[in-house]
């Protein structure tokens, strides 16, 4: 068995190293497929970050009448928190709201002076609510608008922001769908192109395969080296595509920050180094081996 395996690996390496232009052309296609694959990972990271940022910007606030007792507000908070659509509820008391306001406007002398002239805190207590998904704000707003709470609530920001929330919600939804379709299409394209290239490479070796059969080689000894060649394509393809892609990410990441300040692609790639290399290898090897296996089957019939 060990001799058999060592021969399969030897033949596979010989096929690859002596195939020269054919091997190089096949490798280029695998590298391109893997670069597309990496591009899709980056695309997913960018869209996820942008959508998360967008989602974080969406919330609704309930302003209570200034004299509302805190325990009544906390009761509302508890009810809202228990809604399945709610992700997070933050209570900002009047004092905290004032402190935040002062902090925000500390450099604005006119506002500071106006505040000092007032004898009491003019701000209302607020509940800031985030939904799990953007399209769930309507349900939360409907709950907040219940009759029994009307005497204590002053303003719910949902209705004012409804159009923009709905629009953002649609953008997020469409981006997610387009991203998924794009990922599937590009992945399929990469797979089909690689499969065709490997098929052509094996097609050009059909006479050799025929000779091996005539000499009495069993199918495992004929197809085995092509599987090994597929593994070599996968490993080398992953290595080369990473060598191309990582410098691009390293130099390109700071420019991306101009558009998305929260996106640190460099950090993402460094923290996910092993999983990314793993995915690349897995995708590359699977592409190479599965394509080789499919392509060789028709030459092993007799």
């Amino acid at each position, binding site marked *: 068995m060990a001799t058999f395996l060592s021969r399969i690996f030897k033949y596979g390496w010989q096929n690859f190293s*002596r*195939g020269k232009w054919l091997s190089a052309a096949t490798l280029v296609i695998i590298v391109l497929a893997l670069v597309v694959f990496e591009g899709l990972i980056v695309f997913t990271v960018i869209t996820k970050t942008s959508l998360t940022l967008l989602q974080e910007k969406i919330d609704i606030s309930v302003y209570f009448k200034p004299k509302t007792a805190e325990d009544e507000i906390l009761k509302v908070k508890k009810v809202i928190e228990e809604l399945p659509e709610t992700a997070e509820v933050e209570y900002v008391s009047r004092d905290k709201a004032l402190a935040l306001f002062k902090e925000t406007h500390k450099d604005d002398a006119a506002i500071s002076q106006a505040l000092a002239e007032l004898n009491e805190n003019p701000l209302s207590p607020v509940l800031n609510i985030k939904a799990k998904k953007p399209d769930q704000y309507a349900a939360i707003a409907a709950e907040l608008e219940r009759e029994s709470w009307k005497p204590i609530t002053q303003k719910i920001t949902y209705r004012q922001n409804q159009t923009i929330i709905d629009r953002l919600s649609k953008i997020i939804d469409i981006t997610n769908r387009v991203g998924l379709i794009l990922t599937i299409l590009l992945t399929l394209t990469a797979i089909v192109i690689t499969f065709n290239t490997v098929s052509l490479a094996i097609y050009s070796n059909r006479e*050799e395969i*025929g000779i*091996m059969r*005539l*000499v*009495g080689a069993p199918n495992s*000894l004929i197809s085995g080296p092509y599987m090994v060649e597929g593994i070599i394509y996968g490993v080398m393809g992953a290595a080369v595509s990473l060598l191309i892609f990582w410098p691009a990410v390293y130099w390109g990441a700071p420019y991306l920050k101009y558009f998305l300040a929260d996106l640190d692609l460099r950090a993402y790639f460094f923290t996910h180094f092993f999983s990314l290399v793993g995915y690349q290898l897995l995708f590359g090897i699977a592409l190479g081996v599965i394509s080789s296996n499919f392509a060789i089957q028709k030459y092993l019939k007799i």
Partner: protein
Amino acid sequence: MISFTNVAKYYENGSTSVALDEINLKINTGEFVTLVGKSGAGKSTLIKLIIGEEQPTRGKIIVAGQDVGKMRSTDLPTLRRKLGVVFQDFRLLPKKTVHENVAFAMEVAGRLEREINEVVPQVLDMVGLADRAGHFPNQLSGGEKQRVAIARAMINRPMVIIADEPTGNLDPVNTWEIIKLLTKINELGTTIILATHSKDIVNALGKRVVSIDKGRVVRDEQNGRYILN
């Protein structure tokens, strides 16, 4: 050792074309048999049937005790390892050196590296290619390529070597070198089946001659000569 009983091979391409019909033939161990016939007479089809590359439409073909027509495709490699085959177009593996091409036949038979490294140089020496072991097929002449093919065919000491027009692409000098080599291998006890349409070779050999015409055996003579209408 090899027997054909009422064998026929037809090809269906819209109409039926008869490649071989009513073939009854027996080849014994140690014989040197030449198959003669014009191009398209059916010599190559007969060889393809022996090595299991084609299946007979009718009849029974026994090779080394096995019914080739009933063999499963997974069992064919085992049969082919018992046969050595040489073709007009050499059929060497282009990405392997001379040594590797010959060694490949031993490797598929599961022989150990030590044995391979010992036997391959001996056989290459026998066919006069000891100094070409590291060359690739595209660096060899036609005669050298055919000697590599013969070395590969004989390396596993097969019961029979089947040569299909092995001199078809060679000049006269190389042609006789190859024929001498096949004669030598036959003298060592291996059965040889040589398909050729060279009158000179057949007449010079003076061995058994099986003449095929339009898919039928029309003459089968010991110490025969090339006679075709």
